[in-house]
């Protein structure tokens, strides 16, 4: 017979270890192994050499790597200055009951979130496409030109911006919901008291709501960074990184190098950079917003 404590330990192991094993094996181990592979010249088959930081040296001279990095930063900017303000603004309107029909608007804005990114990507590339593109037809009518063709998706200098728009289109509803749930936790009596004392809507907004919501702002910025660094499906299904690598993201470029030209070592070095850059960006955004938070507290 087992003692009570031994029994408890055994049960704990049975409850926790399967998950932990699965997670370490399929998530943590691959990340660490990827760091190692990034320092080899492996091509996917046969032997490979350990070449230290050589891959990274090549990477820092690789033009496409910087295009991809720039596009990831565009995604972060589109999320931070697109999705978050739009989501917040709508949440605020709905929450303060400045407009009616809350449940309707709330569920409609969230709808794109439940449709797969692949479907969204194909849908929008059809809207933007020169052949049947709904937008081409619409703009053609507006401008009074027959057979008007939208020039964006074929233009290496412009193609990333419609993709950023789709990003904002799909995820704004998600940020709206995060802010709605945060707004529900606001000290309602405080706002009412301020309103009775004659505070204007703008005063309530800047003096009460923003300070209280600051941690949510911080969270959503972290979310938009980690979400943007994870982006892959949207670009992969819309442009495959083209034309001429102009819409490549770090993740799609990693895919391209690894599974299309079989440079596993180089691809892994890109993977490593994705992790490093994510950690750096998330860390610095928390530090930056933390300063704002501290200043806010010091002032009040």
């Amino acid at each position, binding site marked *: 017979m087992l003692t009570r404590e031994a029994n408890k330990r055994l049960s704990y192991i049975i409850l926790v270890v399967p998950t*932990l094993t699965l997670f370490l094996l399929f998530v943590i181990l691959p990340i660490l192994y990827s760091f190692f592979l990034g320092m080899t010249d492996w091509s996917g088959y046969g032997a490979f050499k350990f070449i230290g930081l050589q891959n990274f040296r090549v990477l820092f001279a690789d033009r496409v790597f910087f295009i991809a990095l720039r596009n990831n930063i565009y995604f972060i900017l589109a999320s931070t200055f697109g999705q978050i303000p739009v989501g917040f603004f709508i949440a605020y309107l709905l929450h303060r009951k400045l*407009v009616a029909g809350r449940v309707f608007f709330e569920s409609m804005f969230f*709808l794109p979130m*439940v449709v797969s*990114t692949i*479907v969204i990507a194909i849908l929008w590339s059809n809207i933007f496409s020169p052949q049947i593109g709904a937008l081409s*037809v619409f703009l053609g009518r507006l401008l009074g030109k027959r057979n008007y063709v939208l020039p964006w998706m074929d233009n290496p200098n412009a193609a990333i911006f419609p993709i950023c728009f789709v990003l904002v289109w799909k995820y704004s509803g998600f940020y709206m919901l995060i802010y709605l749930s945060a707004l529900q936790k606001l000290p309602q009596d405080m706002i009412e008291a301020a309103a009775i004392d004659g505070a204007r809507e703008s005063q309530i907004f800047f003096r009460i709501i923003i300070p209280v919501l600051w941690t949510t702002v911080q969270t959503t910025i972290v979310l938009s960074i980690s979400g943007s660094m994870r982006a892959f499906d949207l670009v992969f299904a819309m442009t495959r990184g083209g034309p001429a690598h102009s819409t490549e993201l770090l993740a799609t470029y990693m895919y391209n190098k690894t599974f299309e030209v079989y440079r596993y070592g180089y691809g892994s070095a890109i993977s490593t950079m*994705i992790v490093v850059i994510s950690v750096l960006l998330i860390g610095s955004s928390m530090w930056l917003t933390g300063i704002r938070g501290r200043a806010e507290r010091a002032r009040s």
Partner: protein
Amino acid sequence: MIRKIAVHTLLYLFLIGFAFLTLYPLFWLFTSSFKTNQEILLNSLALPTTLHFQNYSEAWSLARMGLFARNSVIYAASATVFTVLLSVSTGYGLGKFRYRVSGVIYSILLLGLIIPIHATLIPLFLLLKTIRILDTMAAVILPYIAFAMPLGTFLAATYIRDIPDEMEESAVIDGCGYLRIYWNIILPIARPVMMTIMIITFLNNWNEFIFVFLFTSSLALRSLSVGLLMFAGPYTKNYAMQFAAMVIASLPMICMYFVFRKPMVKGMVAGAVKG
């Protein structure tokens, strides 16, 4: 007064405009799926003149959407069942057993919420190849479960921690083993959070793309997302069938959303805010 009305009108206009921008593309997708290819090429903005259901039967059999739908259901459902059971067991272990190691395990799991998953793809591919399950259903289902564990465990642990200790203490005194407690007491009480985990996991797995794309290669193992991109990608000529296939892939999740809106939204927000 006039200023207030003006502001009000502007706000409504903004919201309605935004709602239109959100809904019209989806509406356009839905109506286009009933048009003939000719009608789409002729005027992509017009409504269908007759409801052309043939697109759906073509997509279902010709573009193999029926097969892919079956695979998507198998992947999403089997991964979800394991995810829910493991989340609750791990959530129970980490939430109720006061061992110091719990905190460490919990932090490691939460890392999974911000890790860029694409950094794991190459080693994961090699691992699945080494254990000889590449291009089988297991190659998709096992990673699905592993990657869903952080969110599932987090939701379950937060819920189970709030269950009063007295409930299980009395069971312990009655001589109940901890695994019996998990099965007979925790699982029934945790039903609401299981529901949340189930819906979110199912949705995520259904819409997932890259694991199926990389870890399977036989046509017979592809899912809806991957099949869509193969047969109805941006370079297709049969737009009508493509739109029908896209509706087939999305409609189940849209229906699920309208049925389970509350738990879905709650779970997604809770998971996001922690991550």
